[in-house]
């Protein structure tokens, strides 16, 4: 039960966000020009930003986009890392050496710099949606080497485990070894990595957004909304500017609990 609590709370947060998006009369990009930089009012429970956009709606959308994008990116990253790690673990040692060399090389690239280049190559007219997709895709493509080595070592452990050797001694076919012995153990190998990956990507998106390199306006993202915290006048005028960062911290904490729980059960 304790294990499920963070999951349940996360799902509740996401559900609440959907309800907000559904029930609120405002869209994330609609500007309410009569109430700019508003504090909490009846029409805008969490106030508005400097363009008069409803903060609650934007925070809700940012939460969904952040978690959704990070999860999707984490899935891709872990699949890539699993492919590389498993291939290396079950291949002759020279293949493993080459793969790990490539992965480590990849890891040592100045990826923030690369990201800037990629983003600056995008035409200014790129739709906000494209920038969102590309941001998360780039994270996914850059993120895998960090997980490949862990997965490689885990898979090595499976390969040289005594039950795997016993399987061979029982004459199991290569196919059987993979399906019966390797696959059932992948869950406990990959899942913790997946749960470590999501918060890392959430943070990465927030940081990139704060640098102006993330998801483009007017799509709400944690990064873009954190930019607001730059505005001292705003900080003084309303506490509600802290809503997005409070949500981000909450989500990160829940994911952290989830990870440690998942690890404790492996």
């Amino acid at each position, binding site marked *: 039960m304790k294990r499920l609590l963070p999951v349940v709370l996360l799902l509740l947060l996401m559900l609440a966000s959907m309800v907000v998006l559904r029930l609120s009369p405002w869209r994330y990009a609609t500007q309410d020009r009569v109430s700019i930089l508003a504090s909490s009012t009846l029409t805008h429970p969490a106030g508005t930003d400097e363009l008069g956009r409803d903060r609650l709606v934007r925070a809700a959308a940012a939460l969904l986009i952040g978690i959704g994008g990070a999860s999707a990116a984490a899935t891709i990253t872990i699949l890539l890392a699993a492919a590389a790690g498993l291939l290396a673990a079950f291949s002759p040692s020279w293949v493993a050496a080459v793969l790990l060399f490539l992965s480590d090389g990849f890891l040592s690239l100045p990826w923030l710099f690369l990201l800037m280049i990629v983003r600056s190559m995008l035409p200014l007219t790129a739709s906000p949606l494209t920038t969102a997709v590309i941001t998360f895709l780039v994270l996914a493509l850059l993120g895998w080497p960090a997980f490949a080595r862990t997965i490689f070592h885990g898979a090595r452990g499976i390969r040289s485990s005594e*039950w795997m050797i016993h399987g*061979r*001694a029982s004459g199991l076919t290569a196919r059987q070894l993979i399906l019966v012995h390797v696959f059932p153990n992948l869950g406990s190998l990959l899942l913790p990595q997946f749960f470590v990956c999501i918060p890392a990507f959430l943070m990465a998106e927030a940081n990139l957004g704060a640098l102006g390199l993330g998801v483009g306006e007017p799509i709400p993202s944690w990064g873009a909304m954190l930019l607001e915290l730059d505005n001292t006048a705003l900080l003084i005028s309303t506490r509600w500017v802290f809503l997005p960062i409070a949500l981000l911290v909450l989500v990160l904490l829940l994911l952290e609990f989830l990870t440690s729980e998942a690890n404790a059960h492996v």
Partner: protein
Amino acid sequence: MSGHVLQVQLTAAYGKRAVLRDLAFDLSAGEALGVVGSSGAGKTTLVMALLGLLAFHGGRSTGKVLIQGKNLLRMTEREARRIRGRLIGLIPQSPMTALNPAITLEAHFQAAWRAHESTGNQALRLRLRQSLEEVQLPADDDAFLLRKPGQISVGQAQRVLIALALLHHPSILIADEPTSALDPVTQSEIVKLLQRLTRRHGVAMLYISHDLISVLELCDRLAVLHDGAIAECIPVRHLEQATHPATRTLFGSLPVPISVLLAHFAARMRPQSSSDNFPPRPHATLTRNGAAQTDHSWPEDEGIALSANGAGRYNLRDK
């Protein structure tokens, strides 16, 4: 020589460190050969090398392992696979780590069955019942098979592994310290089970153990593994004549003189072996050696369940 089901000559090393140096022995049909040696002498290494699996254990081996006149170490992986588990059964040393923690016992049996049999679930069910009874595991309790290795006792795991090893009626059984993880009662039950297998069904056995007494009880010959080779290999009933220092040291560790033990076992265990020649023993069915036989079943009538000997069934789940 055609009487041998297994002829072995092996050199094995981990990295630069040689563990087995041109170790050689052979095994006749129905014969039980005991291999003793101190911890780290290379017994498990020998087992892995025998099966052509030392590479997966981090070592390298050269030499030959002749089974049915063919060298296992020179075969394609495909050919070797068809021998492992079908002609050679392995009871591994550590029961708890030899089973995959992520899958059920049933999945283990299914995989082992399908590796060599194309017949369906019905045949497996039948055989599974038999082998579970053979090793005194609950054969009627479907819930037992649905457990995972973490949910059974070490003794039960050992029995599961023995049942797995016997699944295809192998003609050679390799037992790597099969009783080391067990309590004395279970130990002697397992020894009796193995005894029945070799005596009645003519299964040739390589019995590896620290425990000299169980070797005396079970085996026809004793090989002492020392310094990477077989220091001495002599028939058990002539053990008193052993000369090698390593063998004498081993005897020195016994609670009673070897002659007393031998007399004891001769009187108790082998009333039938008046003829001084082994391996032919009255009960040994020697038909299952060599030739590419497709029917590997053991005679039906010979129940080899331990309970048959009056030792009494005890409830495994009490443990």
